[in-house]
């Protein structure tokens, strides 16, 4: 018993996501410069920074949707290879929610949520559907289960995308500006779902411009500019007294509206 506990404690020390010395170029543009990041189980990390600073690239690098030029990506202790079955497996352990939803347009909402569990995890159809309905219920779109994505609002689509990620029982979920493509009145419903997830202990990496939301859910804020992580801080510290000048400038540029 004690030993099991010890092993569990040791496991808790292994970060769910770890990036070591990541460098990435787009041609001659150095987009990620020696980026190091580790995300512990249950942690909510919010990435903030001006447009073009490399936030999306960093986010997409975590499950290797982008190739990297140097460095290592380690998912829950396992090094993520460049290709192959192991890459697919590790990707399946990390959910991703995109700015533009990226639902499968030819499939019903229900099928959007069940397809990966059924084909990747080999969950039987009935079981997958029951679980999908529970998840759709949880994000508040169960009544849309038999429609196709084109019939849903942006907010509903994004909540389906979150349900689709959750259906894989991921160890962490990455969000790349999940509310940036939404009409203002729909932002709240998506942030509410995310806030709930954070409250339930989901490990999350979130790129967002929603500063109030960031302050509310973040355990840690990461400020990026020019492809580097310039500051890692608690949300309280970051928003009241950012250490770097560029973070101060960035926060000021957002104006009173955002703060």
């Amino acid at each position, binding site marked *: 018993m004690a030993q099991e506990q010890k092993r569990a404690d040791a496991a808790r020390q292994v970060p769910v996501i770890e990036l070591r010395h990541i460098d990435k170029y787009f041609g001659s543009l150095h987009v990620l410069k020696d980026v190091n990041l580790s995300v512990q189980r249950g942690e909510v990390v919010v990435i903030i920074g001006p447009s073009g600073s490399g936030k999306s690239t960093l986010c997409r690098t975590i499950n290797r949707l982008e190739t990297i030029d140097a460095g290592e990506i380690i998912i829950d202790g396992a090094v993520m290879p460049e290709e192959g079955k192991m890459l697919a497996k590790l990707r399946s352990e990390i959910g991703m929610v995109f700015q533009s939803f990226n639902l499968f347009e030819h499939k019903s909402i229900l099928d959007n949520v069940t397809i*990966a569990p059924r084909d990747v995890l080999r969950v039987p159809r009935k079981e997958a559907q029951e679980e999908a309905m529970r998840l759709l219920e949880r994000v508040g779109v169960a009544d849309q289960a038999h429609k196709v994505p084109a019939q849903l609002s942006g907010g509903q689509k994004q909540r389906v995308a979150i349900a689709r990620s959750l259906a*894989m029982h991921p160890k962490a979920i990455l969000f790349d500006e999940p509310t940036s493509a939404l009409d203002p009145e729909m932002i709240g419903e998506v942030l509410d779902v995310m806030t709930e997830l954070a409250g339930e202990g989901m490990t999350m990496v979130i790129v967002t411009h929603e500063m109030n939301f960031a302050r509310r859910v973040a355990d840690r804020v990461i400020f990026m500019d020019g492809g580097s992580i310039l500051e890692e801080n608690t949300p309280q510290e970051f928003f009241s007294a950012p250490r770097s000048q560029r973070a101060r400038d960035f926060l000021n540029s957002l104006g009173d509206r955002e703060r």
Partner: protein
Amino acid sequence: MKYACLLGRTIREAFVKEYGTCSMSIYALLTQFGDRYLSALFTTYKLTAAAFALAVVIGVAVTVMRIAPVKPLRMAAEFYVQVFRNIPGAALLIFLVYALPYLDIVLSYYVCVLTAITLIPSAFCSEYLMAGMNTIDPGQIEAARSLGMTFAQLVRNVVLPQAVRSSVLQMTNLLVATMLTTALASQVPLNPTDLTGIVSYINTHAVGGVTAFLISAVLYCVTAVVIGQVGSLIDRKVRVLR
């Protein structure tokens, strides 16, 4: 639809030119050769169905190769499509019938015809699927990858279904074009002959004139119209809403 109109015009022109000069009436032709027309129609349908089915299977396989993460596969598939998209059907048939025997490959006439009218549509099938694929938002592919799908799962679940759904109309045209290409069968001795072959048959056994062709043309035409209608029906049903 395009083919049907074209055929219709050909028939009209034939009528204008030849009406009254035909040696046998349609009625006389049908009573004398009705059974042969039926088996010719059946031969054409059989060839069309077999060629189209094979063409789709090969077309899908070639398309998957064209997007595969293995460069030699992509290059081979690309070469295949370029060759068969650009070779005339008659030339391919002549090659199969006359040139292959020099390589000690002797295929039956039926197999030669079927091969010729399969390979060419398979290249077009792949082109249409590639075009259909271009309608898919790359974001969906990233989503599939981030869910842990392998290349095969991605192709099966996301890429092919949408490519097929958005190319139904082109596939319908391809089916009609394949049917019209089966007329190549008339260039080799086949028994029973196809719908075009029957015209030569009748004209060597009786004086069928253009009326003999007319009957075949109407049969091609009606089939093409039916295929076109069914195709648009399917298209409306499966088209991906965006």
